[in-house]
């Protein structure tokens, strides 16, 4: 209960902060539209030349882009800003101001995960939803309740997996401050814009077992556009729980290594 109240407070203060920079809204909107446009055009260009690639057609690939945009919007909404201020460039671990965060009488992991919100990302989320709706309409199928449920569950698992990775990479900064682990992950995460099946076999193995980018976008898109097996659903949810637990443990071990910096 107390945690929820705190989240409410954080959202309110973030809104006040953002409202101070109103011109930024238009610039952010411009960036989002560019991002959406280049994503959609990339797919349109590809399927202008070919009917389907490894079973993926224009509508199903578009649905996957919708999932990608949705997951990245949720990341931008609260996970990203919070962890960035911790472990990003000039973050708290680097500058030593993390001392003050540690002193707060709240679970540190919860605090760093939800303390900063970028409410503009709600606009990104709307655009992502529009892409998903368009894709489903282009597919011309009526969704069953099972499909919708499977989609929501796999999407939830996707956000948890993404959170686990970002938390783990943020925790690694306790060991070597200054290394931008998250940037490396961001590079690899861009591969999630296209279905796993479109990559060569060796890369599919890496993206399934090492950095499970496939679970983040390909599986939810499959849940929406076709039917996925119980097994895939179970693997997705199981992986999410295991990864979040592992990342939390890593974060706790990292916390113990923190020895403050000049302050």
């Amino acid at each position: 209960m107390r945690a929820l109240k705190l989240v409410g407070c954080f959202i309110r203060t973030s809104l006040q902060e953002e409202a101070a920079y109103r011109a930024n809204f238009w610039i952010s909107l411009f960036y989002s539209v560019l991002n959406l446009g280049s994503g959609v055009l990339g797919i349109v260009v590809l399927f202008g030349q070919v009917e389907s690639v490894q079973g993926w057609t224009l509508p199903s690939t578009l649905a996957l882009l919708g999932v990608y945009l949705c997951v990245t919007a949720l990341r931008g909404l609260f996970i990203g800003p919070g962890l960035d201020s911790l472990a990003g460039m000039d973050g708290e671990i680097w500058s030593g101001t993390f001392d003050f965060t540690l002193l707060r009488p709240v679970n540190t992991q919860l605090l760093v995960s939800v303390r900063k919100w970028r409410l503009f990302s709600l606009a990104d989320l709307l655009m992502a939803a529009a892409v998903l709706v368009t894709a489903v309409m282009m597919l011309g199928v009526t969704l069953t309740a099972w499909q919708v449920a499977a989609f929501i569950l796999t999407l939830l698992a996707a956000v948890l997996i993404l959170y686990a990775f970002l938390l783990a990479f943020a925790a690694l900064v306790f060991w070597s401050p200054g290394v931008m682990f998250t940037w490396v992950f961001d590079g690899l995460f861009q591969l999630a814009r296209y279905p796993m099946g479109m990559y060569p076999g060796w890369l599919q193995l890496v993206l399934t077992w090492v950095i499970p980018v496939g679970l983040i976008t390909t599986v939810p898109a499959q849940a929406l556009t076709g039917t996925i097996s119980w097994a895939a659903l179970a693997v997705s949810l199981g992986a999410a729980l295991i990864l979040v637990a592992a990342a939390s443990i890593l974060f706790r071990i990292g916390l113990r290594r923190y020895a403050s910096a000049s302050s």
Partner: protein
Amino acid sequence: MNLRSSWALVKGLWLSWLQYRSFFFILAFGWMIPPLIYMLVWYTAAGDQGLAGFTRGEFAAYYLVLILVNQITFAQTNWTVGDMIRTGQMNQILLRPIHPIMDAVAAEFAGKLVYLIFDVPIVALLALLLQPQMDFQALNGLLFIPALLMAWALRFFWGYWLALLAFWATRADALLTLQDTLMFLLAGQVAPVALLPGALQTAAIVLPFRSMVAFPVEVLTGRLNGTDLLTGFAIQAAWLAAAVILYRLVWTRGLRHYAAIGG
């Protein structure tokens, strides 16, 4: 032009950048990912029988050359010069007894060496994995050199004049993001220009972006015939001249407008 001081600038920057090489390697990694994604997607889409006049191996060759050309021509000062104007660091550079653009040129040479140390081994490894094919001719190899140099100069001056808009507007970087999106769509990254649908293809040929990356790649991989080559070089030369004129204009006007914030 003072050769010795220019050389000292290059050497100084190069040594200081090598010190932070992991940071620059991560940047280079990030820039490499978008062309890499489209290489793999087209590679899979081409299958065994090829697609739109490209075999699988030709797609691999096209994109591997593109990754290198994109890195060699990448205009990093595009972003940093704007920041220097906004923060007032430009003051120091203006005081030096050497033209300020030399600082950007030195950063180009120093940076390219560091980035290529990272890129070349990866491209070589990918070449081993994907087995690129191309019909190499000595003439194309010779023509590639001026095409690459002009592409670099065009991208450099184009990026520089856009960055100099920071003399007037604080958020000029929105224009740079628009430029990045156009580069992605029209400079042969999302697909070889020949594969773009009608209107996009015309835009790609008329606007300067193809001349900055895709044109040298098409020259080297032997995808252009006599007239295409001539018009390509003519368009490239025309845009280069325009970029240099714009740079001179914006520089002299902007300098008068510069208020030298900070110290």
